[in-house]
């Protein structure tokens, strides 16, 4: 994959600076704006331990992102809001390169000590599932409920979370290295963890997809953050077009499938077979 240039390119932060960030509610961006530094510069949120201090979306308000800006042919896209992951099941070979890239990124980020000597695919926010002759890719689709039909326009997982632990870090804020689009994040302090609650994962499997999994170390929920706008999985994918990061329909629920449903559809499409999974 081509190296993607970002308009809001920030210097790679060192670990020390990460730990020094204040944990206050004021984001770095606000601070910069307030001090007249403008929006073109750094966008850095505060991090304490594993906790991200972004601004959760205001309760009840839909995380509406701007309409996608389609890049002109030949130009490097500089703005990722409105982009989504698109998976092509015919091109995908189920090689797991994306899974390893994702798992390594988040394991190293969240549990650098525990995973210093372990490669564990359970940390992956993106997962291949091989239903024998078809491979299905699982990742959060960024589904929204429809207000007129379902009484809310939240993410369904966030809507059922009793602790408001599934937050949306607003566009341009959050952790160093995460810029561009608003992204989902699990507040590691608020999440009750797998031993107490798995509502988010269950509602996702029940009605939408299989986008939420659990961290094998701290047993908190995991969800795809799109790496804040520059997904590692897409960069790791060796198959042209199998996993794309492109301007796509905004409501991700139409990209999302429950894995067994998806596999059944693919058996129909690829092999003209009806399989009950």
């Amino acid at each position, binding site marked *: 994959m081509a190296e993607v240039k970002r308009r809001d390119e920030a210097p790679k932060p060192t670990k020390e600076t990460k730990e020094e960030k204040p944990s206050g509610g004021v984001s770095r961006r606000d601070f910069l704006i307030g001090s007249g530094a403008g929006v073109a510069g750094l966008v850095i949120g505060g991090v304490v331990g594993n906790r991200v201090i972004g601004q959760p979306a205001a309760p009840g308000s839909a995380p509406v992102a701007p309409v996608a800006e389609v890049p002109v042919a030949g130009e490097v896209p500089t703005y990722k809001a409105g982009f989504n992951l698109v998976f092509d099941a015919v091109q995908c070979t189920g090689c*797991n*390169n994306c899974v390893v890239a994702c798992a390594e990124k988040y394991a190293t980020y969240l549990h650098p000590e525990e995973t210093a000597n372990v490669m564990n695919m359970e940390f992956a926010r993106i997962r291949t599932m091989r239903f024998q*002759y078809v491979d299905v890719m699982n990742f959060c689709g960024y589904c929204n409920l429809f207000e007129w039909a379902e009484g809310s326009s939240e993410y369904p997982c966030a809507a059922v979370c009793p602790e408001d632990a599934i937050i949306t870090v607003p566009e341009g804020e959050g952790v160093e290295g995460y810029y561009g689009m608003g992204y989902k994040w699990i507040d590691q302090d608020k999440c009750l963890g797998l031993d107490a609650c798995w509502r988010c*994962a269950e509602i996702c499997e*029940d009605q939408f997809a299989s986008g939420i999994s659990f961290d094998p170390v701290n047993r908190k929920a995991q969800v795809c953050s799109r790496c804040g706008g520059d997904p590692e999985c897409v960069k790791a994918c060796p198959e042209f077009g199998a996993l794309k990061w492109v301007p796509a329909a905004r409501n991700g629920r139409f990209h999302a499938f429950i894995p067994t449903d998806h596999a059944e559809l693919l058996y129909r499409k690829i092999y003209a077979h009806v399989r009950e999974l």
Partner: protein
Amino acid sequence: MADLFGITGKIARVDLTAGTVTVIEPAVDVYRKFLGGSSLGAYFLFKEGIFDPMLDPLGPDNLLQFMIGPMTGAAPNARITVVTKSPYNIFCASTCGGHIGSEIKFAGWDGIQVVGKASKPVYIAVIDDKIEIRDADHVWGKGVEESELILKSEVLAEIEDREAMIRDADLNPTWAAMRPPKRKGMHAKRLAHVMLIGPGGENQVHYACICTEGARAAGRWGSGAVMGSKNLKAIVVRGTKGHRLADKKTFMALTSAVLKSESGDAFWRSYGTAGIGAASAYVEDAFPIRNWQWCCWSDPTVRAITGPFMDSTSFVRKTSCANCNLHCLYPVEITSTDPLMDRVMSDMPDWEAMGMVGGNLGFMEMEGDDPGQPFTGTMRDQAENLAKLQYTTFIHDNTSLDFIEGGANIALLMELVQRGFISASDLDGIDLKWGDVHAVDELVKKIAYREGIGDKLAQGTYETARYFAELKGKPEILDYSMTNHHYGQPAHDVRSPKDKNALEYVTVNRAAAHTGGGTGGFKTGDYAAAIAGQNVNATQNSLVHCQFAAGHLAGSRIDMVKAATGWNDFSDEDLQLVGAREYALSRLFEVHIRQLKDPKEEWDKQVPPRWFFDPLPNGPEKGAVAYEGKPDVLFNEALPAYWKERGWTEDKGIPTLDTLKKLGIDDIAGDIAKQHL
């Protein structure tokens, strides 16, 4: 135990008779000597006394081992090796791709060994440290494809197996009214991986294989029959522990480099082994056609066995094993005017299938023609011929039969029919003509279920020939059995100087293996190089990684082993020794379990006479035979020279005590060697 990296230091031993699971913790020294996979499996065959000549391969005492190595897990191109005493009474170390090898490591094991026999059909569920023996009545008798999908859904990791928690009250009222939750709880976040048998294995057909992911198999030497004899339908593995690596950063960097290199490998990434295709026939003159009576068609327009033709006709996807960018397996949907085959899901065929159940069964010519005549059909006819080949691949895979030995077996019968030795009445009324896919379909099902004549044929090609030779009182029937050490020859010939040298098949430690390595050395008579090649391949089966990717891994293999295990003093020479140990052990194993007094006469010379006395009838190497028609040169000059180079005795090919001592295995194999020296 000290901190272990690469390996986990634990092998699970499941006793199906007692219903117990114990943990074996081999010393690190054992791992350093044998690594894992085929070599470590060979070690256990000795340690556990499986070399006992009286031990029935299909009895409860046989040891069935699913072995992986120190790299399996995070490494690219992971495979798994199944090691056991074969129902053919030979050494079985059969490797298989897919994701299950890695998954066993993620569950925290270096291997799973099965002994005993369950009283009723069971499967083994491995969920990290937890190993359960579960009832398999619901899948017993079902084909591989169906059973695998059922079993996959039944095994969940601890971190994903949850009852329903969501209540209507968790949703807002509008949503709950519109779409109340189904309350099914939480399930798989990554799927378990399965190795299983179909009816062929359940009925202990000697050449039954163990399948995974529908079309992959630990195909050869009949491990599926051993699994069936234990009433074991499947092992299903789901691991969440990951792979511990001594130097993760280096290991992952090496892995990335291998994967990047693979991404540029146009050969494998275009058609997989189907890319070899017609070159083997029209350039090498070494393609199996009609039980090796021909090795090339006189009319080069026959091309249904080429990658581009197959791709244009039927490839619909491509699938990879764990961490591999070569994706050499291409699933297909068969399109045919014949309702038997139309819309059947199958794969490729890969190299061995296109030879052994393609050309070898006479599928590629029009009815009534022979391979020496011009091809009289159209391109559409060629597509139909390809469909027959793909369908035959499917029925073997789905019943868990090895299509190499299966193809050799059926081709033998077809030639016996062609030559008038047997007729339809000997085959339960099946009129077995070259290229008749319906007859093949009936026969394979009879074999898989051991019905009627199928019960005799289920013992493999050589026994089929022996049965008919005795029945008809015609010993010459045995000459048409294309078996090497009583086991079917795969789709590489030894008559054409451009393919394999006969000595490669004679010396490879797993009977008639086409993946033994050392091909170049054997051809030039450089036995040191040949032995190095064989040792490397044995090491690959021990690490366990794929031979197709060997070129991409060659430069970094030793560095990856070091980075994974932290054995910083480990060297390329140590890797060579691993292979040499496996060869010495497997040779002693076969000599001992068969109690061979004169191994050369009784065993090594058991090759098809066709190699020497049936010149290639057409093609670029017309007239070629192996060793210029002089088997004595092969067995009395070349073979002793090879044995000498290995440090084995020149008369019998037994590893000397000195050699065993140098290899550091005199403690486990010395006594056996003394009995045969």
